[in-house]
């Protein structure tokens, strides 16, 4: 089978997976909403109108208003921008740095590998979220610090994945052949080894995005992430909590957006794994 043919079959198999296609649609709709937010939002997401506060969903405010009378639908539309920004940038950060570290460690081997991976393990001793909490508590809250906190957490995770993949191919014949014809280490790493670990990194990257969505919301919910009045979904949930008895829609509706975006990435990642990693697929 030629390479093109194989790729074509993979795309076909991916598109046959109904859940994966639903995932794509979910993520794509959030991306379009994020891009079009200024044009499709019925109101200004920051404009307060205390006369209309805590209104349940109705005709003029499809998803109701919050405790300041701001339109929840518009805030969710604009919130998708921040959710996607944090997710994509933080995952790219950990993917690029982590993969490079893992590639280098795995290819070099020996004491260098041992040293680097022990260093990475040190970060992995913290339970989920605790390292990020520690980082933002030191750097202070805010959009970019949140991205950094999630990104740093992911570096050792990607490094481990990449290294694990590299050591299974570093001694294969085609690598030895490249070395025999005098290719430099950097060239072997980037041109010969890297393309072979792309599928794994891709699957892992998409699944990490599902996780990053949840991490951003968690940090923001705790008051350590994106700060008000920026319309972030988790911030809407957190600040609506005081009115959960009289106006439960304020803190329940934005959670659906978080769930759907994270679910979208999970479905895509799952579908990709079935296609790209035959060992795991059933």
């Amino acid at each position: 089978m030629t390479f093109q043919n194989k790729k074509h079959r993979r795309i076909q198999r991916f598109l046959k997976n109904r859940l994966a296609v639903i995932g794509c649609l979910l993520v794509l709709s959030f991306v379009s909403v994020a891009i079009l937010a200024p044009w499709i939002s019925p109101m200004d997401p920051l404009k307060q109108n205390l006369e209309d506060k805590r209104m349940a969903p109705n005709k003029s405010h499809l998803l109701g208003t919050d405790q300041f009378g701001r339109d929840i639908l518009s805030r969710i539309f604009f919130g998708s921008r921040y959710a996607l920004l944090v997710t994509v940038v933080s995952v790219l950060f950990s993917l690029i740095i982590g993969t490079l570290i893992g590639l280098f460690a795995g290819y070099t081997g020996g004491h260098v590998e041992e040293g680097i991976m022990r260093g990475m393990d040190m970060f992995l001793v913290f339970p989920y979220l605790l390292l990020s909490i520690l980082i933002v508590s030191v750097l202070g809250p805010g959009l970019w610090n949140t991205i950094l906190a999630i990104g740093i957490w992911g570096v050792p995770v990607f490094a481990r994945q990449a290294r694990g993949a590299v050591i299974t191919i570093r001694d294969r014949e085609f690598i030895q052949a490249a070395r025999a014809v005098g290719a430099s280490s950097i060239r072997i790493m980037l041109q010969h080894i890297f393309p072979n670990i792309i599928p794994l990194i891709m699957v892992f990257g998409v699944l990490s995005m599902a996780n990053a969505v949840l991490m951003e919301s968690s940090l923001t919910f705790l008051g350590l992430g994106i700060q008000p009045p920026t319309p972030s979904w988790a911030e809407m949930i957190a600040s609506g909590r005081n009115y959960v008895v009289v106006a439960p829609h304020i803190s329940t509706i934005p959670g659906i957006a978080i769930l759907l975006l994270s679910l979208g990435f999970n479905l895509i990642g799952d579908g990709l794994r079935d296609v790209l990693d035959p060992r795991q697929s059933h």
Partner: protein
Amino acid sequence: MVVYTIRRIMYLVPVLLGVVFLISVSLEFIPGDPAALILGQFATPEAVSAMREDLHLNQPFFVRYLYYIRGLLRADLGRSFTLRREVSAEIAEALPATLELTGVSMMIVLLVSIPLGTVTAAKPNSTLDNVVRVLSLGGLSMPVFWTGILLMLLFGLHLRWFPVCGYGGIRYLVLPAVTLAAPSVGMMTRIVRSSIMEVLHEDYINTARAKGLTESLVLYKHALRNGLIPVITLLGTQLGQMLGGAVLTESVFAWPGLGRLTIYAIFSRDFILIQGVVLVFALLYAITNLLVDISYTIVNPAIVYD
């Protein structure tokens, strides 16, 4: 086996030294003078410099690190300056609540995900399998704190089955434990399913079937036992997830555990308390991973560690 266990316990030492190191380094980045932060804005310069001496702030970083390690050896984590108490005493008070919460949640996770994973592995692509697949993906895509709020609204405020928040008997535990368990149930069900499906392709399963054993005996006796071995390794990671989730759950349900103490420490900028609490979290995680690794050798004697 004994040697392996001892070696694994010894391995905790460098890990903890590393964690303390990372925590100390990160606290170096806190803007401002910690001594001034402790004493507040009306402190005299003399008091600040005395406090700096007390906290060894005039010493180089490495010396301070050694002081902290020396304290650790005597179970002394320093003194919280906002609560005016020993950090170790605060932690000892909060720890049982967190262990209770995560322990019960873990039981829920195992009790739900092992049967669900096994049943769906036996009938892949059946309606049940698809429903469980979507539900478990949904469970692990849900933000923990939101699940908590939904459960609180439904079972606490509307149906009034359980108290909305607080700490007490088992009734208070139900909602937080279910909240914390939800994402891990999703994850573990998937793991159990794929692990059992892999085992079902093995030769010895065919042999068992050829002997004429019933399908349920093959599934529950032969496949389940071996299928659960890889699941045990992932239990450690799940516990790490749950410890992090506990921070959120405790914050939603006002559960007086380590998670709430962490949040308190961060917002009051009590860095000595932050240091202690994060360290205990890391220690808990390291110990559970250790237990998981050891139980792994017991469950599967074929594994020999050198």
